[in-house]
């Protein structure tokens, strides 16, 4: 079976005063119906990779790749009109903070209905039913009330569930979750993740889970890409994470506190210039 998404040698660059800045420098991976974690520090290019896939890199930013295919069909630098048809309906994205990523002056219901109606062409009533159904699906107890609420009237966790409901309403094949839980309280974090996991699994979707939280990714994903300075430095199954070979990954692991292996002092992450250009430790 061909992968849902196949990316080869993706490059994203921006002109700056001191020449071109490459945010993503040759990232390659395939995504099947699985949960792929992308881990890295801020600035490692993980978010930009997600946006490049969605065609959301705005000029003067430039996206290049050997290949970027969705279901065997190239989506690299598609005309905006065609890209728009893919966005939302086949690939979707959940962002970090629902406080900012939901439109403050539109009711929740309208925001959910909007994308759904656009891609399915269904009637208002059908869209409404779908929205309520999705709200229920993300375990919102009183969908009717939340439907009419404004984003500022809901809590952060609920906001993120709304976001998930909204993004999954048109039944996309791939969901990119860009740090979906880092703005949330720890207490609601797991709940949101569980909901997302269940929905993605039930629909047989591909999930790209972007995070800086190695532990979270290890628990939640099937496979992990470790990114550093715009490159994938290592790729490995999540369960083998502890056996990571690349020193950067090891560094990341060591800088996390662990209950089973307490240390006096957490290790400070050491970076080496050489990693910037080294090839990934394991190419798929």
């Amino acid at each position: 079976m061909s992968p849902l998404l196949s990316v080869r040698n993706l490059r994203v660059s921006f002109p700056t005063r001191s020449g071109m800045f490459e945010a993503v420098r040759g990232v390659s991976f395939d995504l099947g119906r699985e949960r792929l974690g992308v881990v890295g520090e801020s600035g490692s290019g993980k978010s930009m990779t997600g946006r490049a896939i969605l065609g959301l890199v705005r000029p003067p930013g430039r996206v290049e790749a050997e290949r970027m295919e969705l279901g065997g069909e190239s989506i690299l630098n598609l005309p905006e009109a065609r890209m728009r048809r893919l966005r939302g309906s086949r690939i979707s994205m959940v962002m970090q903070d629902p406080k900012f990523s939901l439109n403050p002056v539109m009711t929740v219901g309208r925001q959910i209905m909007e994308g759904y109606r656009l891609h399915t062409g269904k009637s208002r009533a059908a869209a409404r039913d779908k929205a309520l159904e999705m709200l229920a699906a993300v375990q919102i107890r009183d969908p009717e009330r939340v439907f009419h609420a404004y984003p500022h009237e809901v809590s952060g966790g609920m906001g993120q569930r709304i976001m998930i409901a909204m993004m999954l309403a048109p039944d996309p094949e791939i969901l990119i979750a860009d740090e979906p839980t880092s703005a949330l309280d720890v207490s609601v974090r797991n709940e949101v993740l569980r909901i997302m996991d269940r929905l993605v699994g039930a629909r047989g979707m591909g999930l790209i889970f972007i995070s800086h939280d190695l532990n979270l990714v290890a628990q939640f994903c099937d496979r992990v890409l470790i990114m550093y300075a715009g490159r994938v430095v290592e790729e490995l199954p999540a369960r083998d994470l502890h056996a990571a070979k690349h020193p950067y990954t090891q560094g990341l692991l060591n800088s996390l506190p662990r209950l089973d292996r307490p240390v006096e002092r957490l290790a400070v992450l050491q970076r080496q210039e050489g990693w910037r250009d080294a090839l990934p430790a394991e190419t798929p």
Partner: protein
Amino acid sequence: MAQPDILGPPGQGVPPPAGGMPSARRARLGRRLRSLAGIALSLALTLLGLLLVTFVIGRIMPIDPVLKVVGERATQAQYDAAYQAMGLDKPIWQQFLRYMAEVLRGDFGRSISTGHPVAQDLLRVFPATVELATLGTLIGVCVGVPLGVVAAARRGGWIDQVARVVALVGYSMPIFWLGLMGLLLFYGILGWVGGPGRQGIIYDGMVPTVTGLILIDSLVAGDWAAFRDAFSHIVLPASLLGYFSLAYISRMTRSFMLEQLSAEYVVTARVKGLSEGRVIWGHAFRNILVPLITVIALSFGSLLEGSVLTEIVFSWPGIGQYITKALLAGDMNAVLGGTVVVGTCFVALNLLSDILYRLLDPRAK
């Protein structure tokens, strides 16, 4: 020249209130009403202060209103009689109280520079200004808002540059000079528009006054010729004022839009696959409505003050000219009356944009 002020929206800079489930809509409405009452009170205070300041200015002005009444040739005896008749021999606070009492009864006194009751004068000159300001603002909004939005959407592109130059040129033109030139060109040479004044002289007094807005009155009377005539007279000064407010409105719109377009929810909207037009107008634009309305209200308010210079150039019998003339003649009844009207409008516009803020922005307390 009255330049509109760039002000933030009401409550600008106040962090968005922390969200929470509304207990009930009624409670929300009650809170809104209560805070509106507070606003109304502070507005009333503002108005009172405005009157007081105007009154004091009137008294410290070294222009003698008595002379205007009795004329250059008057003898000292005539002068003294008029001085007392005008109540100027009383202490200033007594004069103010007396004036306030009269204003509350709706009596603004008699203007000494026109010989008419001030209220009657205002009913004549203010509609002239309202008509001009409304049309000007309409032009400014209809052109300025789309221009600003497009400029923001195409930031750095040629539309943005053109919009910038158009707006800044509008800001920088001495409006009286532009007015004279426009009059010369479009009236004097081309004959496309009507000349100075609100109407062609032969239409003078032909349309019965209902609202005082000639465009509307002539429609009410069904007099198309008079409407065409009035329109041909207003179009040039209104375009000039419109250009000016366009400049302001488009710059502010652009700046608001840029702020919104960089917001995350815009990315969300794009992720949903919405067209760029929908993203801009359906999402970002809806978020700037509130501050934009404030800006438009302010710009309208500053035009309502009467653009004295435009009014002079176009012989437009508006409130700006009226107050200026009255001020220079020491005609304080007229100045006070005019200031009350303008100030009330300004305050009312503030209140209106506050109310709209409360109605339109779901985040408002």
